């Protein structure tokens, strides 16, 4: 059955090539999706041609996800039509869409952690003979697909042992179980390293040559330039414009997206390095893949970047200093005082704040109101409490002031955190760092999955804190952030510090050259 599925879309593609490309590969006509009280997508007209990378661009909540969820069969439209090769189709399920040749890789992983890569790839379409599973055949097929994609993964490995980037690769490979003629990629590079991103782009280019149409969602400008052919901009659920990816300027794109002119995304930061806040010597954490002898100094009034691949130890280093990860050996001095075994609560009291990268799993209590999410790290100090009893009036006042200051939208502090958009959820986390005075704040990937408008606000927020004399550590896999925001940067590689760069030395080439192992010579 899978064999048939693998062949038929390709045949269909060939057929299309012969019958000329009179019809776009995929087209929507006045596609509309209503949720109670809200029109998530409003009369959307979108078309995807054979062999193009069509970027969907818009702020969080603009309707991109709604559009692709309907194209992928995960959601049904309220009204309007979807045409596939000129024929109207009704996609009732993801499975149905996939059989037709429309495969989607969503941001949220649909992998079962306890199963192997091969098992995950063939979930729901396991090769069988006489009703019995054929693990050997399944494995061989998985191997072939992974090899074809040039992903270096053993199909027998369990998914929960993989890094986030590797899981992302499995998720992509899953879409290739059937040969897709339309591939939807929703922010596929959010957790990929530069190397893996390049690999993905090579793959995208190969698919383009085969005539596959690719719908690509990203917030990163550089990616749009690199692989995009056309860009469709959405705002508030409405179609705004479709432009050429190569000739449209960044500023134009941002203006189209936000409906207003946005200046520079990155602020100009006035660094004023002062006393040393954090000094770490030769830190080790137990276990493989941990921190393996890294030393770092962070001063007041500067933004120190931690760059490196995913899994290079840059996050673990900060977590170990913060006390949320065990330490094997090493010296930590915070504000001149030696800290023997850091404990989270104690470090918070000393003035050290760590904001985790994964809002959903590590950051927010999604079912609790915004107010509680903001105040949670400061409930043990005035004015939030006298140690035992809460001062609810002060809590309300402070959290709503912070919501005003950060432009939380909607400005409802009793709304559940899970009901805010990604960018606004991030603002809740940022607000947490203002609930008491901190001397050092570590931002771990603060802009993952955040639209450009909010992104600029977050950068301005970080810059302002720095100028007020707070020591900032910015952990980021997004190179432009390191390039434009930091005055010093450490490059992590396999738990060690590969390089320390300052001011003008922080260039893309310099950073990248240290991302991988140095040649012996």
């Amino acid at each position, binding site marked *: 059955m899978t064999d048939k599925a693998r062949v038929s879309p390709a045949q269909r593609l060939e057929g299309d090539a012969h019958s000329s490309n009179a019809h776009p590969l995929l087209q929507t006509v006045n596609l509309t999706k209503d949720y109670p*009280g809200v029109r998530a997508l409003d009369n959307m007209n979108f078309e995807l041609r054979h062999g193009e990378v069509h970027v969907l661009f818009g702020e969080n909540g603009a309707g991109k996800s709604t559009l692709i969820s309907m194209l992928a069969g995960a959601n049904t439209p309220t009204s309007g039509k979807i045409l596939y090769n000129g024929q109207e189709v009704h996609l009732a399920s993801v499975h149905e869409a996939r059989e037709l040749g429309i495969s989607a890789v969503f941001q949220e992983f649909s992998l079962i952690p306890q199963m192997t890569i091969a098992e995950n790839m063939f979930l729901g379409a396991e090769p069988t003979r006489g009703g019995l599973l054929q693990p050997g055949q399944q494995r061989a097929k998985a191997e072939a697909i992974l090899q074809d994609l040039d992903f270096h993964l053993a199909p027998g490995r369990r998914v929960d042992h993989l890094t986030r980037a590797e899981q992302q690769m499995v998720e992509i490979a899953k879409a290739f179980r059937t040969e897709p003629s339309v591939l939807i990629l929703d922010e596929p590079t959010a957790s990929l390293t530069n190397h893996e991103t390049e690999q993905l782009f090579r793959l995208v280019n190969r698919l383009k040559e085969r005539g596959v149409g690719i719908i690509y969602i990203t917030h990163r400008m550089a990616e749009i330039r690199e692989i995009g052919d056309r860009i469709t901009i959405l705002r508030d659920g409405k179609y705004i414009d479709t432009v050429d990816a190569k000739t449209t300027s960044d500023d134009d794109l941002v203006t189209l997206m936000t409906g207003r002119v946005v200046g520079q995304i990155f602020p100009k930061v006035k660094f004023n390095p002062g006393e040393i806040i954090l000094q770490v010597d030769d830190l080790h954490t137990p276990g493989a893949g941990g921190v393996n002898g890294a030393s770092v100094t962070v001063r007041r009034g500067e933004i120190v970047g931690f760059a490196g691949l995913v899994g290079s130890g840059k996050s673990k280093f900060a977590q170990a200093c913060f006390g949320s990860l065990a330490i094997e050996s090493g010296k930590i001095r915070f504000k001149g005082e030696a800290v023997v075994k850091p404990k*989270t609560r104690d470090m918070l009291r000393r003035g050290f704040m*760590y904001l*985790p990268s994964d809002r959903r799993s590590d950051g927010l209590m999604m*079912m*609790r109101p915004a107010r509680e999410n903001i105040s949670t*790290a400061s409930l043990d100090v005035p004015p939030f409490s006298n140690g*035992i009893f809460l001062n609810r009036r002060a809590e309300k006042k402070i959290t709503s002031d912070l919501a005003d200051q950060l432009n939380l939208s909607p400005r409802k502090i009793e709304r559940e955190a899970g009901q805010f958009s990604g960018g606004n959820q991030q603002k809740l986390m940022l607000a947490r760092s203002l609930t008491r005075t901190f001397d050092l704040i570590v931002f771990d990937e603060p802009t993952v999955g955040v639209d450009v408008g909010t992104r600029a606000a977050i950068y301005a927020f970080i810059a302002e804190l720095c100028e007020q004399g707070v020591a900032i550590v910015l952990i980021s896999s997004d190179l432009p952030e390191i390039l434009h925001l930091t005055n010093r940067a450490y490059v992590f590689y396999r738990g060690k510090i590969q390089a320390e760069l300052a001011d003008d030395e922080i260039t893309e080439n310099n950073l990248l050259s240290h991302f991988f192992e140095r040649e012996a010579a």
Partner: protein
Amino acid sequence: MSDQNPSSSISPGRLAEMSKRLFVKLGILPFLLVIAIIVFASMSENFLTGRNLMNVLRQSVYLMIVSMGQMLALLTGGFDLSVGTILALTSVVGALVMASVYAAMPDAIWLAIALGCIAGVAAGTLIGVCNGIGVAFFGVSPFMMSLGMTSVGFGVALFLTGGTPVYGMPQAFGDIFGFGTLFGIHSPIYVAAIIAVLLFVFLYRTRFGRYIYAVGGNLKAAQLSGINTRSTLLWTYVLCAALAAVAGMLLTARLDTGEANIGASMPLQSIAACVIAGVSLRGGVGRMENVVLGALFIGLVQNGMNLARIESYLQTVVLGGLLILAVIADQIRLRYVASLKD
């Protein structure tokens, strides 16, 4: 709705939309309460009398106290299946100690009552300490931990009594804590009211209460916010057991004997009371006031079924069904929340 004439101006569609919004906001409990009252009032004219409602309140007090404890465990994302055993063990140990002190010193009635209560509550709370240590420090799932302790506690209670009820407690104990009244209200109701007030202050006015919600809301986020999640979990189970133990002593006073076989229905009923009241099984969500109402609702249903002469075996069927209905309603509610969000 009060300022409009429902028959003329509200169309069925709007009424459905309004009840949907009400459902999302308040959960299934208000609907169930209204339905139950209408059904039972029509089945028996004695149902809606002040005397009967007072009866319901008095009978639900024990479940109410246990449910408040159960809610704490549920808020952290766990649950406590051993609340029934805690009731039994408390009853047996409290009665044994009280009876033997009373036998040794027949004049020291109050000493006997005090020592008996302390010993009983301490024995019950000890189960909670074990649960808490297992869950918080060894990462045992609350299901396995409290299930195991159920067997342990029940076994100890049976071993201590040999399976027979414990007699010989001072008459005053039952007279005061079981049947005593003040201003026409039974003493267990006062105890429950005091506990409810204290727990309310603890949950919503102290930071420890907030920590329980935080741990259930997102354990990792709570850790990174400097909350000692282990001690929070430990104390949650201790508190849950302590509340169940208090209910155990009150029930012992009412029965006038120490019994190893009381409380068997408590785990199911207390979880049902919480879930019907909108406490999420995933943790982090739920209000205490609603749980009190939830326990009252179960008491109301039981009372109504008694008045309607529904056989007690069938009553358990109804209760199980209600629990499942509440869980299904919670799922539907989540779906509505998601659709209203967009």
